[in-house]
C-alpha cells in the first residue's frame, strides 16, 4: 500500500469510523481489504485508548471501562471479550488467545463504535486522531 493509499483510503476509513459514516466505511473496506481494515481498527483502538487513559493503563482500569461499555450496549458481546479487546489495544500480549475471529471482530466493532461516540464528545476536530491512527497502522508508531 502506498503512502497516498494510507493517507487517502486509510484516513477515509478512520474518519468514517469516527463519524459513523457507514457508506464511506463500506467503500473504504472494499478498496483496502479486510486485513488492512482490521489493522486500521486496531490502530484506532490503541489511539483512542491512549487519548483517554495515557500510555500505561492498569488492568483494573480497563476492566472497569469494559464493564461500563458492556452495560451500555444493546447487543452484548461477552464482557470478558470486550475487556480483552481493550487489553490488546493497550498492548497486553496474549489477550485474545483462543477466542474466535468472529467474536473478536464483533467485540472490536462494538467497542470502537462506543469509544468513537465518547471521543466525539471530547473532540470537535478528528484530524489529529485520524493522523495518529493512520500513522500507527502504517508505521507501527504513535507520534505525539
Amino acid at each position: 500500500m502506498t503512502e497516498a493509499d494510507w493517507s487517502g483510503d486509510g484516513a477515509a476509513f478512520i474518519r468514517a469510523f469516527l463519524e459513523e459514516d457507514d457508506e464511506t466505511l463500506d467503500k473504504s473496506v472494499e478498496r483496502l481489504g479486510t486485513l488492512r481494515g482490521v489493522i486500521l481498527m486496531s490502530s484506532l483502538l490503541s489511539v483512542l485508548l491512549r487519548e483517554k487513559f495515557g500510555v500505561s493503563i492498569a488492568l483494573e482500569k480497563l476492566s472497569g471501562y469494559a464493564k461500563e461499555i458492556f452495560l451500555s450496549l444493546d447487543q452484548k458481546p461477552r464482557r470478558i471479550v470486550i475487556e480483552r479487546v481493550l487489553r490488546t489495544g493497550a498492548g497486553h500480549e496474549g489477550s485474545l488467545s483462543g477466542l474466535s475471529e468472529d467474536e473478536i471482530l464483533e467485540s472490536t466493532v462494538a467497542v470502537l463504535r462506543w469509544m468513537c461516540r465518547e471521543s466525539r464528545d471530547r473532540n470537535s476536530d478528528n484530524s489529529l486522531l485520524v493522523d495518529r491512527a493512520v500513522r500507527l497502522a502504517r508505521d507501527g508508531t504513535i507520534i505525539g
Partner: protein
Amino acid sequence: MSSESSADRSMLEAILDGDGRLWRQYSAAIPGERAFQIIGVATSAAVFRKWPQDPSLQAIVDYVAEIDRRFPAELPVARAVVESVIRGIFDEPELVDGTSSQDIIVAEILIIKSIGFDVLNSEAERNSYFDEVLAAVD
C-alpha cells in the same frame, strides 16, 4: 465409603493427576449434574487454597498465562474462559455469562489440575482437599 462417594473421589484424583481418560471414565459413572457440581466446588476450593485473600487482577492474569504455558496442548478453551471462571469465584460471576458449560468445565479441570500441582503437595493435603469438596457436595 459408598460406591458413589468412591467414584466421586476417584474422579477428583484422576483430575488432579491429569489422567483425562480416567476422569472421563469415572465421571461417566456419576450423574451429570453431580459431576458438574463436584467439579465446580473443587474449582472453588482449589482457587481459595491458592488465594485465601482476593487476588489482584494482575495475579489472576499472570496465573492464567502460567496455566497456558504449563498445559499448552490442553488449553482448547480460551484464556479468557479460564480467567472468567477464576474471577467469577471471587466477585464477578456474570463474567462467565455466554460461555458454554463445556468450555467452563474444561477450564475448571485445568484450574484444579494446575492449582493442585502448586498447593497440594502431600497425601494428607490431597485427602483434606477431597474431604472438603465432597463434604460440601453431600
